[in-house]
């Protein structure tokens, strides 16, 4: 029984992501920035593996942005007014880049955009839920070196 419990616990730990519900506005800047960059890299790895490298150059947009959208769907409108950070990750050796939007109030990813601008949002399906259920191959972004805008 004990081994079954330990196995379940281990499985839960494995599928959980780095994204934890935490208010980033109360975090010390250095700790917050470390969290943002680590989470952003995880999101890139999960949704755009072609864009992931260990030595990605990271930068955090200096001001916190406020979410707004003209899209009237409730899953989108419920986020209007929320504050978010933008983390940019760039490959120094190519034109691959990604930007990850992370909510300030709960520290969870809001969206990811890749160099060609296309990406995923987590308004209709939360990032944590998606990771738990598994990201399918056709839901990931792939890099095409020959693609123009």
């Amino acid at each position, binding site marked *: 029984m004990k081994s079954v419990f330990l196995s379940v616990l281990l499985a839960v730990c494995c599928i959980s992501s780095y994204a934890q519900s935490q208010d980033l506005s109360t975090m010390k800047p250095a700790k917050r920035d470390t969290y943002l960059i680590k989470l952003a890299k995880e999101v890139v790895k999960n949704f755009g593996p072609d864009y992931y490298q260990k030595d990605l150059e990271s930068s955090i947009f200096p001001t916190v942005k406020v979410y707004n959208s003209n899209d009237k769907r409730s899953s989108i409108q419920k986020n209007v007014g929320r504050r978010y950070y933008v983390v940019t990750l760039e490959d120094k050796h190519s*034109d691959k880049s990604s930007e990850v939007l992370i909510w300030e109030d709960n520290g969870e990813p809001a969206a990811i955009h890749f*160099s*060609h*601008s*296309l*990406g*995923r949002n987590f*308004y209709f399906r939360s990032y944590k839920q998606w990771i738990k259920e598994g990201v399918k191959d056709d839901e990931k972004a792939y890099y095409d070196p020959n693609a*123009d*805008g």
Partner: protein
Amino acid sequence: MKFSNLCGIFATLFVTTTMVLLASCSQDDDNYDSDMYTLAEMGTRLGGGGDPGGGTNPYPSKSEISNNPDVLAKMLKVWNQTIASAEAGVRCEFGFYIKYNQGVYTFGDVFSGEPAGHNEHAHITLPGTNDPAVCAVFHTHTSLINCDSTMERNVGPSRIDYRSNHASLMPCFVYDYQSGPIMGGQAPDSPGALYSYGQERRVVYSNN
């Protein structure tokens, strides 16, 4: 004036000059500024004269091109074609070269990119050209009308657009939605807008 005061003035001048130079270099390196015109603004711009400047460069400037009613009408037609195509289930980008000769604009063939799947990035690569009449390049971005709602795209020129060969050679225009990011299943009647990026005029090399 005391020697220490003079040193202070020189030090201030040196620091200020260095900061200005660094700022201008940084702007050149990034070159990410994009001018956006909404449809409403474009309406008021129709018939505008544009800037006749440009020295010995015979090519028109971005504003001269985007002020021309024939050019605008052509761009709008291809944007509408892009939306209609996406609504019919074929999501692809369209584009063409804009040519200029002695005050008259003409257009190259309209090309379409490969149709993109529901989760795929749509893109277009126009065939290369040596035509000296080409003064600018235009393409459209696609709608996400029939895509999964979790798909999302920033609007306007992408980083790849900014870094394209065309952008380093000539004015570039992209027609896209006015406000974004846009998401899959968006309202099809979202207003469009014209964005510009790339060179102010086609670059003229000494061997041209």
